[in-house]
């Protein structure tokens, strides 16, 4: 088993190497065998540590959930930018839904069924990328649709948009830093 050395940890793998540090800041499985491994923190450059810390924070602060990890697991040599591609696709598609919802919120009387339908799509897309806080706000909005509360819908939609924007900025920063870390590596 590997020994820890003060200030420097090293990875000990029980069999053939199956993990390497992903430019995205996490661990990625290399092609081939997957084995039980025990490992301790590898020495990384400061940029890689920053990327890993940022990634960890996104989960710890509730911005992302397990679905984001599922996307990371799908990223490989055949689809090297898959996660960023999916997130970009989400933000392109969700801009359309936001526009639709904004228009629907201007009509009187409010069509709660249409609003709920739009938000159902929005929630589904948010779930697909693991956007946990956005998804939760979508759920709140739909509850107000069920309750036929116009004030509730208007208020929670602002929160949906806010979380949507916050996450976009965080992910943009994260992907940018990850790219730099990858280049630096």
């Amino acid at each position, binding site marked *: 088993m590997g020994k820890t050395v003060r200030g420097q940890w090293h990875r000990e793998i029980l069999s053939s190497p199956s993990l390497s540090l992903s430019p995205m800041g996490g*661990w990625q499985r290399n092609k081939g065998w997957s*084995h039980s*491994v025990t490992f301790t923190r590898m020495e990384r450059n400061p940029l890689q540590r920053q990327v890993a810390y940022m990634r960890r924070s996104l989960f710890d602060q509730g911005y992302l959930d397990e679905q984001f990890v*599922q*996307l990371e697991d799908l990223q490989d040599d055949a689809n090297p930018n898959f996660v960023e591609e999916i997130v970009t696709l989400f933000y392109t598609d969700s801009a359309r839904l936001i526009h639709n919802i904004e228009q629907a919120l201007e009509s009187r009387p409010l069509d709660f069924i249409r609003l709920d339908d739009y938000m159902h799509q929005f929630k*589904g897309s948010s779930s697909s990328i693991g956007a946990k806080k956005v998804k939760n706000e979508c759920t709140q909005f739909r509850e107000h649709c069920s309750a036929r509360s116009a004030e509730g819908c208007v208020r929670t939609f602002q929160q949906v948009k806010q979380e949507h924007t916050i996450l976009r900025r965080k992910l943009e920063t994260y992907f940018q830093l990850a790219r730099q870390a990858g280049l630096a590596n």
Partner: protein
Amino acid sequence: MLLLHIGKPFNLRKEILGKKMRGKGSSSSKISTLIVDDDPLTRRIHKVLLTKVGLETQAVENGKEAVDLYRSGASFDLILMDLEMPIMDGPKATKELRAMGVQSMIVGVTARDLEVEKQMFMASGLDDCYVKPLTTDTVTALVEKLNKDN
């Protein structure tokens, strides 16, 4: 310290999953899947997921396109059918495919989590129904069931 489970080697699992059932009469050695979903995000995620486990994939945007494909003579081992789609939704497309005698495994995928809605979808002729997006484990289980049933 992080302990990972011991699993089958990825490339061996890919070979097992990708291998087509015997006796299907197709010359292809890969399981073919049809993704039926109006959401481009879901289509992309499922396409990469299914390809990664060794399956052939094709995607259409609504139930009518799926039905038209079968009417033109195409056939797939597995269909991932979304519930809500414009033009023709999942339940209607599933009913129509079953009425045509299609025996492919049809699995519903939906963002709706209510049991009553899933049961309604199942009643249209699905073999199973899951909340989307699918995970690698779910797809693995589906393909193993597909192989076992045949």
